[in-house]
């Protein structure tokens, strides 16, 4: 059993490394398809002399062969040396560090909201009566179709003009202030995911609830709360976890939108800004970071799922 777990972990970690390497190659390679010359951007559009251009090209290794540049970038990334931004005139690592707290706070806050409300409504939907279920299903169907940015606009409109309870712009400093500033962004971000997670949980729970092993427990006179705890929640944990891992991808993408809409200074808004400015260095680094976050989270989810449900250890990668 121990060896089995060891092999499973090794296999997953191997897959993680391969995936990340391939992804980094795609990210780095793709940006070389761009039609523009990065040196022009670096020169700031102000009639640079050939020497200036040459200096810039040397500074950013623009004339090295592709693999050398790729390796230079990748080895830098491993040492948290992400290169120098082309448009912000600062190290990308500084740019990112300065914004990471906000984004992590936002994602964490949103994740808590999603887990709490998703679980609550999902469980209620699976276990409660038909009326409650209908209400929850209808609400979630609607909510799932509300794009993050629409939710953001509605909240901004509501709180900027009608209710002045919460700030509609900025990220705040310190814990309390952040909570205050990031509540609306987190709500906008979570609306559709709460609905999504709620549905997944509901269907996972109800499929477990109708499972044969639950029937066995019922035939033995076990009380419903115990059944739900021991046989339904426990069994649904692995699939629900998997789906939750996948919503992380959505959350990452979602931060891009809400940070932009609420003027939160985070990784997402930095990415959009950098993309608009074609600051390739920043775009590359953030894209890799986001991909890595997604892959790592999902690997962790896989490992935890396998611990929860040992059968998964036997299936392939």
């Amino acid at each position, binding site marked *: 059993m121990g060896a089995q777990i060891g092999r499973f972990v090794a296999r997953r970690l191997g897959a993680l490394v391969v995936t990340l390497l391939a992804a980094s190659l795609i990210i780095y390679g793709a940006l070389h398809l761009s039609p523009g010359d990065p040196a022009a951007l670096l020169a700031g559009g102000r009639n640079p002399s050939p020497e200036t251009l040459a200096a810039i090209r040397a500074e950013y290794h623009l004339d090295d062969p592709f693999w050398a540049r790729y390796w230079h970038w990748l080895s830098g990334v491993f040492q948290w040396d992400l290169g120098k931004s082309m448009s912000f005139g600062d190290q990308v690592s500084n740019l990112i560090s300065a914004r990471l707290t906000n984004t992590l706070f936002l994602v964490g806050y949103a994740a808590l909201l999603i887990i709490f409300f998703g679980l609550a409504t999902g469980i209620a939907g699976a276990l409660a009566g038909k009326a409650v279920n209908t209400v929850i299903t209808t609400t979630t169907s609607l909510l799932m179709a509300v794009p993050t940015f629409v939710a953001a606009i509605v909240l901004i409109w509501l709180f900027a003009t009608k209710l002045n309870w919460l700030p509609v712009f900025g990220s705040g400093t310190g814990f309390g202030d952040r909570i205050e500033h990031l509540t609306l962004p987190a709500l906008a971000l979570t609306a559709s995911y709460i609905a999504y997670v709620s549905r997944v949980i509901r269907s996972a729970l109800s499929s477990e609830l109708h499972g*044969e092993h639950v029937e*066995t427990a019922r*035939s033995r*006179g*076990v009380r419903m709360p115990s059944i739900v705890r*021991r046989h339904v929640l426990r*069994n649904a944990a692995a699939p629900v976890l998997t789906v939750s891992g996948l919503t992380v991808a959505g959350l990452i993408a979602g931060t891009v939108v809400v940070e932009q809409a609420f003027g939160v200074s985070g990784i997402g808004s930095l990415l959009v800004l950098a993309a608009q400015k074609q600051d390739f260095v920043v775009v590359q680094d953030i894209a890799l970071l986001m991909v890595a976050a997604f892959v790592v989270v999902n690997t962790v989810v896989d490992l935890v799922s396998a611990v929860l449900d040992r*059968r998964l250890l036997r299936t392939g990668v």
Partner: protein
Amino acid sequence: MTAPLLRVSDLRVSIRRSTTDVRPIIRGVSFDIRAGEAVGLVGESGSGKSMTARSIIRLLPGNAETSGEITFDGDSVTGLTPAGLRRMRSHSIAMIFQDPRAHINPVRTVGDFLCEGLVLTRGVRRRDALRRARQLLTDVWIPDADRRLRQHPYELSGGLLQRVMIAAALAIEPRLILADEPTTALDVTTQEEVMAILDQQRRQRDLALLFITHDLDLAAAVCDRTAVMYAGRIVETAATGDLHARATHPYTRALLSARPTTGERRARLATVPGRPSAAWEVPGGCAFAPRCPLATERCRQDDPASRTVGDSVVACHHAQVGAPV
């Protein structure tokens, strides 16, 4: 004669598929089981065997509608409160399912499964429950009990798992066991082992048994009486013994003769034309009439009531004492 342990009278079950589509699947089933007695319930797929067993512990799908009366040990099962129902399920009647792999929670250990009933419904301390579980595994001839208790279901073979299921049923010291095709998924050799264990334990503990199977010979081997179901009705109930000689209902006889044996090769198997009909397809009259070689106009008009013919209770217009039809 003592009162039966379980009495089922005129049980009817239908499934409501929509507001207008209500399908009968059990159409008036009556039988009883005395304490310590084993009764076999035999029939082809879809004849309603499982539904009958489930009705007894009220484990029917949500859209099922039942009528009729079921009493266990003199108390009405149909009228039980939820708490009473749980008490009956946890103390008096245990069920063994056909597919242990699906019916045992895959993410929990075998030990968990065995102890669950005791710990959660009897308030037995987990340590004591584990000790009991260990003893039970030995009773069902599973060696190396300690290791097995820690294993997950996927690590056990089908035969072993079914024995675990039997052990779990015995754990609550019930008075009646409902075994729904416990061996259908198993090899003949494993089937024999499992049946031998079940039979042995049942006799040792003097438990009543409702044994569901497709196989008349298997039922005959472990049961005192056998009931044959067709399209949601019991068409014949007879004491076991030489079933081949005693069967009176044309359907029972057809079943017996359609089954090839290892002993001799027949030139041609006797067959029943058509296919088994579902309970809701029965137009009226005897359900077996469309396939029955003896069917007359009367059979197609009115459904024969059950009546005692010799040692058997038969629902056939043509059944006669001593004269196999």
